């Protein structure tokens, strides 16, 4: 067990280091010059030179990389070229927005997905299953950004039931916060709930056909009790897995959702940074998401290996 953990930790660290190098070189491979993007209409040679000097863009790539690594090791993610503010403080304002969006979406998707999945499995061959399956397929197939646009068009603009965009921090006004975040959460949660529903359904079906459940049934336990006790537990493992593996998907989804609903979150910050060639922000974002991804998967693996030690025999390096 210890060897396994050490091994996994070392692998994670290696991935992180690789990610750091790749993103550093990757952003510099983007065509375009951050100084030009920043200078906007004041593009005199002196302005450009001053910007490059200020952000160290005039130095050679290895020197820049040295600074970058050195700063990270000192806990400094750098300063945004576009806004002139430290990236860490941008993250402090942007991350809570995205976290709230993502966590709410996961919670919503779990409730809907697990519920629908269990119903679909329990009511096999009945209309309820068809409806649940159909909705899940549609949820998987609909482009989320389009769903967002349609929701804005018909639920926000036409009726005024929801604000079309914007964000109010929870600490400032909880009611308004929920009012603003509800539509984006539903949109982001749609696809996820479809995934969870389908996984739950098949996990539940597996569980229902397992010997111990058949035994329980044979002993006269009520079906609902069987499902509640055995099948649901399986489903929760599914949810944990999805939370880990779908993190990247979730962030991608959040990027577009935030873009459409004008939420000042992590995804929107990232997209703006890519378009503006804001190197420090892109680097920091990838570093943070990669770390989160690796950490979550490490935890998921850990949980798994605790639940079922056989898993690590397969050597699934997540």
């Amino acid at each position: 067990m210890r060897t396994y953990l050490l091994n996994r930790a070392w692998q994670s660290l290696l991935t992180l280091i690789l990610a750091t190098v790749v993103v550093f070189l990757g952003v510099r491979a983007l065509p375009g010059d951050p100084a030009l993007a920043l200078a906007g209409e004041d593009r005199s040679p002196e302005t450009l030179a001053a910007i490059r000097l200020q952000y160290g863009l005039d130095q050679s790539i290895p020197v820049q990389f040295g600074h970058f690594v050195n700063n990270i090791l000192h806990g400094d993610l750098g300063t945004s070229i576009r806004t002139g503010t430290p990236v860490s403080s941008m993250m402090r304002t942007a991350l809570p927005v995205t976290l709230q969006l993502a966590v709410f979406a996961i919670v919503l998707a779990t409730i809907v997905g697990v519920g629908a999945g269990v119903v679909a499995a329990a009511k096999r061959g009945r209309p309820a299953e068809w409806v649940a399956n159909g909705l899940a397929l549609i949820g998987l197939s609909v482009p989320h950004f389009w769903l967002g646009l349609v929701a804005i068009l018909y639920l926000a603009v036409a009726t005024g039931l929801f604000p079309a965009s914007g964000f109010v921090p929870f600490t400032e006004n909880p009611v308004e916060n929920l009012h603003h975040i509800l539509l984006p959460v539903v949109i982001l949660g749609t696809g996820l709930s479809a995934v969870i529903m389908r996984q739950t359904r098949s996990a539940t079906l597996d569980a229902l056909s397992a010997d111990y459940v058949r035994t329980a049934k044979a002993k006269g336990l009520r079906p609902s009790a069987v499902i509640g006790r055995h099948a649901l537990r399986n489903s929760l493992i599914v949810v944990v897995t999805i939370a880990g593996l779908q993190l990247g998907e979730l962030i991608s989804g959040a990027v577009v959702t935030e873009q459409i609903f004008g939420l000042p979150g992590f995804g929107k910050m990232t997209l703006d940074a890519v378009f503006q060639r804001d190197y420090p922000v892109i680097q920091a974002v990838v570093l943070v998401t990669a770390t989160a991804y690796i950490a979550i998967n490490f935890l998921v693996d850990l949980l798994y290996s605790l639940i079922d030690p056989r898993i690590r025999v397969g050597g699934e390096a997540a």
Partner: protein
Amino acid sequence: MTNRAPGTTGSHRRRTALIALASALTVSMAAACSAVSTDGGASPGSSGAQPGANGAAAGEAFGSPAKADEVKQGGKLVMALSAEPDQLDPTLSRSLYSRYVFHAMCEKLYDVDADARIVPQLATALPTVTDGGKTVTIPVREGAKFSDGSIMDAAAVKATFERNLTLAGSGRKSELGPITSVEAPNASTVVVHYKEPFAPLTAALADRAGMVLNPKTTKALGNRFSTDPSCVGPFKLVKRVPQNSIELAKDPNYYDADKVHFDSISYRIITDANIRAANLRSGDVQVADSLSAQEVPNLRNEKSLTVLQSQSLGYQGVSFNVGNVDGVGTPAKKVNRASANEPKIREAFKYAIDRAGLVKVIFNDLASVACSPISPKSEFSSEAAQRCSPHDPAKAKQLLTEAGVKMPYEVTMITSNNPDSLRLAQALQSMVKEGGFDLKIQPVEYATLLDQQDRGDFELLQLGWSGRIDPDANITNFVGTGGSQNVSGYNNADLDAILTKARQGQDVAERRGLYAQAVEKVQADNPIIYIYRQFNLTGVANTVKGIQVFPDGVVRVAFGGFSK
């Protein structure tokens, strides 16, 4: 989606209803008049003018200043901003949108009125120019206070000049021209010395270069001034949440505080035009800038809203690469392309463009045709400077034949990949077909576009300029030899001579004549083909009064108020 074409939103200069600036009654009367009847013609009034049949004659609606008896004190104004302002430091700011916020917190030596004329703000009169244009004397207002209560005086103006000239990364240095020194002989006089005469100074001082900064703050914060900016203004910064909002509160130290009605202003960044409009409709915001031309007719039908419109001082057009081989600013070299070497091809392209048609299809007539870098609103404009070539596909074909090229003649245009630019490009593509051109569109990301245009890696590109009050800033950099934005790589010694003379000239009539000549030169060679001028379209809820937009495009909200 976030990226936009250069100068997508025209704007410039700044600031607010004159009524509050100068205490003199006469001045406020003048402003009130000019705001409703502009020389653009067409119906004034708050509901906005109907655009004319052809774009050039379209009307404007700037909004009117708030009358003291129709507004109440207090309340928080919420304005939707179409883009996030960059640093709130007038020296370092590079984004046009920062001016929307600055206008409420950082007053300038000079301002612009509804006729794009320069009027005093923190100065008390227009500058006096002596010594053949090399000495400029500016009288400075007395009794104004910065947001921390300290006194604004000539020494502060001098310190601001020096900061703008020397701070690393200053965006203002080039706007100020060849200054040798700045003096403050007494508390209310600033004298600027020049190596060569520099006429565009006054116009520059009606923008960010003219914002007077609190020397205490600049000293304490250095290049981090934007974290706690302090200027003279009706409002001051309270809080900024990046990507989301900027909150201002009324500044009790402001010299004309009794003209200020709102308690606070909240700018919310909403980049999507539809969503800005939706928020305006729902009443969540009272003011929204840069409305979509497609949406304006619908908005004009709403009783609760008013749409203000003013013509941008800038222009939008296309630019041929005629000599940019080694990058912008380097000496022009021969480009191996017929469109670079044969002016007749470029002229043909000009005749192939149906400007009025484009304006109608793409902008619903909420833009005006443009054939010149000088806005017809400018006092430096003249009939000669506005001369326009007609849409004449037959002539275009004839010119292509004369140039000896095969038709359809293929031209590749790079353009920004935002939906607006792409629509324009596609409309252009199908229009020039008739004139014998096969226009290929190559959409690129905005950051890539900037890079390609500066490197000279293009044949034709779509470009735009938000415009400045002084014509020099709209022409010289773009077509003058070695100009920092002369991405065409155009060089013409005769034109350079005219532009230098115009820049140094102190007499309006003389400069007007020179700019007419300059336009003629540009139109003969067509390195840039000017196509249209945008309208600054601003939506205002009828619950507020006194919101104005002048030709500089800045939405002036600081002296408005909620209706009684």
